[in-house]
């Protein structure tokens, strides 16, 4: 996934010199969009986890392992967010007594995915709110630039 925002591409500028560049006018928009995209991805991961909350067979003879998003920032400068990778939660599976289940072992226990619905619902709410926040930044910034453009009337 590529949504890297690079502030001002001045080649002649020595490193470390911070300068206002015309190039940066749309910087906040790119950053807000990167936030929207990553929260969108987070939402996708949550829906995969919830959909597979009771998947006892995800291949490899194991139940479904919960997925987790890892975000990173491009650098320590002003930059957007990026989805670094999606990791698998290596936490323990839960064991449920269900002797009638085709996947049950000789004691009648079935291994269930390590997905916890309450946690997923919390992540879902967080992703929704973060998406809204990024959308709010985008809208506010648009209004800000429009205020500047009002001066041109």
């Amino acid at each position, binding site marked *: *996934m590529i949504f890297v925002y690079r502030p001002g591409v001045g080649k002649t500028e020595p490193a470390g010199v911070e300068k206002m560049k015309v190039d940066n006018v749309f910087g906040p928009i*790119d950053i807000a969009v990167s936030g929207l995209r990553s929260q969108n991805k987070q939402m996708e991961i949550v829906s995969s986890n919830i959909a597979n909350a009771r998947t006892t067979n995800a291949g490899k003879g194991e139940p479904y392992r919960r997925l987790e998003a890892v975000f990173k920032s491009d650098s320590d400068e002003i930059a957007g967010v990026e989805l670094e990778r999606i990791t698998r939660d290596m936490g323990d599976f839960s064991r449920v007594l269900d002797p009638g289940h085709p996947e049950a072992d000789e004691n009648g226990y079935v291994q269930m995915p390590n997905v916890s619905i309450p946690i997923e619902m919390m992540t879902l709410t967080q992703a929704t709110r973060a998406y809204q926040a990024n959308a709010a930044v985008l809208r506010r910034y*648009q209004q800000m630039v429009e205020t500047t453009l009002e001066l041109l009337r």
Partner: protein
Amino acid sequence: MSKTSIVELLEAGLKAEAMRQRAIANNTANLQTPGYRRLNVKFEQLLNKAIESGGEFDFEEFEPEFYHPNNTAVKADGNDVNLEVEVGELVKNSLRHKAFIRLLNKKYSQIERAIDLR
């Protein structure tokens, strides 16, 4: 100052914005089309090159062009359109458009004032 007038420059900018708007509309419409690659408009780079290559250039021949950016994340079905990115582009485009229109308006009212001077 080169011979290219402000009105001509703004006109070229507006033309590029119109093309960009079409590209965005096209991209959004093809959000789910398998194999579709998003379109973008090359304008600023071309304009920069034209200006740097030496002052004057003919606006009649200056054309922004469509291109397929190749640094986008392609989905499993070969499509690389992302709704959020298009929304961002749309916002940028409308702001740029507004700026150009306002500047053009300013320029015209300047001319009008010069004509009205009695």
